């Protein structure tokens, strides 16, 4: 039951909140001459947006509990094309075995995933309409860059499954950065106090003109604290998803730090460039010669500045747009000297690793990925880790724990093999299961913390059969 309620408890977020500016004075221009009658605003918004609101009901396949489980989740969305394209959040539509959508509380249809981008938490679906269905109502996007603090907005969606609900509030901030952790590094957020609850995810944030200025995504657990993806960002991403099914990004291996980092109380002089605080090893940036502490001034001749943390997403987007495989020229300042370095970005690859349920072993595994599991990635760049261990279960009995990295396993052919990918592990698992004469025990070695140890996984018991 989700819109992802991020408990962004942690002073970082509060700090961000504290550091953010209060509502600026309105220009006055926008409102002058127009009636600020609430009833009219709401009626207008409703009229324009309501018909296109969608209640999204995916059946998700979850692997974190040690076995593949199906869960019904809900979220919201809105239709953007008359033939059935609609948007919602990635965290609503991801890993869906099937999706049903309810339109206007009167019709229900299946929908398919067209494309998904975890970094910006957006997903594009296509509603499977029966032949001859009349064209669907669509929403209109507004210009999120012209939104200002204090402006009235409405969040529409299905909080807690209560479909087609409207909540009302103002824009609290227009340039909120919450990319401190693994995700959300490529965009800023609209913050609003319109109630965003689990179930609202993916629904539109609508201005007083009835235009979608944001896509509701996160609630912060506190009252009056919700975040929406700005519509300009969403439009660009949705367009790319429609064309390509995903958003290709380039990876350089740079950890950037703004020049004035209030959250970490660290300030550099100057107002040009962005700090390469860290360069991963190995990475294209490292290979190109960029070092920790370099100040990147320009890429391919165009200046690149990130003075504040809110500037970072734009910088990252610029870097991500560099074509993979083609060297880009980086202008870098190091110890007072300017250097030009050639860095060839590579494709980012998948955000998270593949999931697999080792049914008989009662555990689920997942590929280690740079973005989703950076701490495991640090120890093993290409590998598989245990995502979940079912209780009761064979893996549990063997002492395997979630978070263990599977280093090596018997390959079923008499030898032992290093495990580098989920696919490889799946092959071995299937081979072992398919061999009826084989003793139902497998020797594998896991890395837990800093240490590697061998284990016997005894799978003579069929737990799932018993529990039926």
């Amino acid at each position, binding site marked *: 039951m989700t819109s992802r309620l991020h408990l962004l408890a942690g002073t970082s977020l509060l700090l961000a909140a504290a550091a953010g500016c209060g509502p600026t004075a309105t220009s006055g221009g926008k409102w002058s001459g127009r009636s600020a009658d609430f009833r009219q605003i709401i009626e207008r918004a409703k009229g324009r947006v309501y018909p296109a609101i969608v209640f999204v009901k995916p059946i998700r396949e979850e692997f974190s509990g040690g076995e593949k489980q199906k869960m019904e989740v809900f979220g919201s969305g809105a239709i953007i094309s008359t033939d059935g394209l609609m948007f919602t959040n990635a965290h609503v539509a991801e890993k869906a075995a099937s999706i049903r959508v309810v339109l206007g509380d009167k019709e229900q249809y299946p929908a398919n995933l067209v494309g998904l981008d975890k970094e910006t938490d957006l997903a594009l679906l296509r509603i499977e309409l029966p032949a001859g269905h009349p064209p669907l109502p669509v929403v209109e996007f507004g210009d999120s860059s012209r939104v200002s603090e204090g402006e009235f907005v409405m969040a529409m969606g299905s909080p807690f499954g209560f479909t087609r609900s409207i909540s009302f509030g103002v824009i609290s901030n227009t340039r909120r950065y919450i990319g401190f952790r693994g995700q959300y590094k490529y965009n800023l957020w609209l913050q609003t106090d319109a109630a965003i609850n689990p179930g609202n995810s993916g629904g539109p944030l609508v201005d007083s003109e009835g235009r979608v200025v944001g896509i509701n995504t996160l609630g912060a657990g506190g009252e009056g604290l919700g975040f929406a993806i700005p519509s300009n960002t969403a439009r660009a991403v949705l367009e790319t998803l429609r064309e390509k099914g995903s958003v290709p990004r380039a990876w350089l291996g740079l950890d950037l730090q703004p020049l004035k980092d209030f959250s970490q109380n660290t300030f550099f002089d100057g107002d040009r460039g962005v700090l390469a605080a860290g360069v991963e090893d190995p990475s294209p940036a490292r290979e190109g010669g960029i070092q920790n502490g370099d100040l990147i001034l320009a890429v391919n001749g165009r200046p690149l500045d990130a003075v504040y943390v809110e500037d970072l997403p734009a910088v990252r987007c610029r870097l991500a747009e560099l074509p993979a495989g083609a060297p880009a020229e980086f202008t870098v300042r190091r110890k007072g000297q300017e250097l030009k370095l050639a860095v060839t970005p590579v494709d980012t690859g998948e955000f998270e690793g593949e999931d697999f349920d080792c049914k008989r072993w009662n555990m689920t595994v997942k590929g280690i990925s740079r973005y989703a599991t950076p701490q495991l990635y*640090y120890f093993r760049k290409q590998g598989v880790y245990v995502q979940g261990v079912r209780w009761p279960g064979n893996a549990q009995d063997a002492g395997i724990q979630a978070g263990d990295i599977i280093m090596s396993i018997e390959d079923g052919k008499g030898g032992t093999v290093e495990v580098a990918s989920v696919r490889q592990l799946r092959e071995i698992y299937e081979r072992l299961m398919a061999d009826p004469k084989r003793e139902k025990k497998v020797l594998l070695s896991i890395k837990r913390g800093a*240490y590697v140890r061998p284990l016997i996984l005894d799978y003579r018991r069929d737990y799932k059969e018993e529990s039926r």
Partner: protein
Amino acid sequence: MRMSKSFRSRSRWARPASGAVLGLVLSVAAAAASPARAGEPAEPPAAGPAPAPAPAADGAAAAAAAPTADGAGGEERDKAARDAELRLKVMEAARRTFVRVVITPRWDEDCLLESLTRSDYSGRGAWDQAGRVAASRLDSLMQHETARQAITVPGVLVGRGLAVIEDDGTGWEWKLVGKVEIVDASGRRWPAKVARLLTRASAYVFETEGAEPPAPPAWRSDFKLGAGERVLSASLLADPADPNRWFVSCAGALLPFDSSPASADRLTFAGRSQGESGSGASPGVFFDAGGRPACVALQSVRLDNDAPAAWRPAEMLESGSVAWADVEKVQARVSAETRRVSYKVRFEFRVDKDDEEEPGGMAARFHPRGLYGGDSGPQDAEAFGVSIGGGRIFIPRMLDGQSVRMLEKVAVKVGDEWRPAVFAGAFRGLVGMLVEVPGARLEELSGFLDTKGVPAMTPFVYCQAEELLGEVRAEARTVRYLAMHRGHGDRLRPNAHWVPPGALLFDLKGSLAGMAVSERAEPTLFQLAGSNGLGGYGDGEMTLSGFSAHRELFSDPTRAFEPSWRPMTRQEQRRLCWLGVEFEPVAEELAERLGCSRETRGGQVGLIVSTVYPGSPAEKLGIRAQDILLRLGVDGLGEPVPLMARYAGATDAWGRSAMLGRMGAMAGMGGMGRTWKPRANFLTRLLTEAGPGRKAHVTFLASADRKVKTGSFEVGWAPEDYDSAERLKDEKLGLAVKPITYEVRTALGLKPEDPGVIVSWVEQGSSAQVARLAPFTLVLGVDGRPAGSTAEFAKAVEDARKQKKDSVRLQVSVMGKCRFADLKLGE
């Protein structure tokens, strides 16, 4: 009556063999060893009276012959009848020979308080004696108070108004003796007091007071022991169920002792309680075939399984005795002498506070164990020691190794003031420590007696100082000497092993004879392993030593000290010796699968190596990950020890929550958990206790070729590890850093040349915390300079301060992600 054996510190009244009341069959002492000739003092037996062929057949036959013996023949029946007649005669004679010595305890508030307060001293082992004395006193006092019961012990009339009772070697609780009365079989009572302590026979002589003392029976003065004459033994016993009923017993038959009319009215109920100690059956008396008493048998105090000593009364009384009044005088002198040379010593221990501050602080928490064991002893401990000359004080107790290492200060009370002292060392072969008081003039022990050639049963007086109820006391008690410790030279063996260690030993003239010390054998590797390598040594066997035995030791003690038991700094204490591996226990199934069930004894033995540290002895021996360690031996510490899987302990928790819990969160914000185990594990602790410099041998199964190999290495100090490394704390910045030690480097996959220090602690609200530093974050550089060590880090911060900078810029890294963090310098 429940025989208040507790009235004595330790009742060693010989118990009837099977709990039921039986006559004891005694063997008669051999002629050679017994004081057989009248008028001559007995020869000191070399090893106590030797057993003589006992005319036990008679007694046995008599006992075995049940009253319902079938008519197997008239002759037999006649014999049985004659035996029965004899028995009756003997028992009637016994009635005239035995008396009951009735002792009424007196109320002593001091004893009461002492007993109650002593329960705070939870001692253990041999040091429980004080506790036992206290408990027994309390018992007697309470018994008297609540049940108004007196204690009765069997006595034998050996002369006019003279009765002897056995000294079981514990010494009576003379403090609690109030009124004494001697009561004969007819019920007549005489007041009495203790008159003499016999020095060859283990007995006390009581004398009645007043006119008309009881007359003894006619003892056979010409009785020759061992001459083949038939004797029957008898003794005086109490009914275990009813302390007021006494019996004389002979060869299995019983006759009530009390013939007074009053006792005839007593009703007896069936169902005697078994097992409760009946009163002792000693002293016993041998009667001849005519029913005349021949000799007294004392049996409480014996050397091993020797026969009891049998005495003719005349000889017994003349064999050697000391007036009790004199004994009391000696005890007083001894007490004063003991107090003169005893000094109170106080040990103060270090308190390691910073352990608590450190997150993931998995370092073994060191708590001083104090002198009485237990896990968290007090922060200081006190004990009495004896001054042995040269400003040195010997404390006969032992702190354990851990506690010694945590010693911070030692002080000795001289007169009224506490003088600082120095911990000189802990003895290896004895339980005891030595402290030195520089520049102090201390009283000294003087006058050592040569304890060779001391006859058996000789009483000695032992005394030890202690502080109780607000004053320093030294209670002197007597103990009987038995024999020289065979093969141990000048070591005395008392009959009682409850003489507390450190007690001084004096003879009855008040001359110092020796001191009680516990000996200690050097522990073997197996013992160290069993005690979890924590350096706990068991109490050694207690011996009373003639002082000359240890004079050498005390004159040059440094040679005899345990080198690793000395005060250490916190850092030193945490040093470990190493082999250089991390391990997991092997399990049965795993062993089977790896094909090493035989070597690992079905998975019971074996530690699977998970990591080998570079530069370690293990690496040099060619041990690799997945090898299985089987056995460890250390030269000089006995047999090698199998490395049992159970020693590995719980090793599972490491790394899991640290990694998983923080996975989704905080990448780049610090917040990494501790993924490396503490280096203090079973193996390192064992090697550390074994001590550096020793040669060790490890047997392991190499996983590569499945061969069992043995490698030798010298036990040496490991490089410092995370828990033992000195931390550098900068209060103003609000953080502490430690060097990146070898196991952390391996755990984080860092190369040896990668510079950096690791944050071990961040203060809430400090500039370090505001800059989002967290424990286990690596600091790679400061203001552009690499921070290769805590010293470099400190220097860089100091330089920044000198330059009056606002802040220092740190380059930090968590899991490979680097960033910069400015820390505001000081306020």
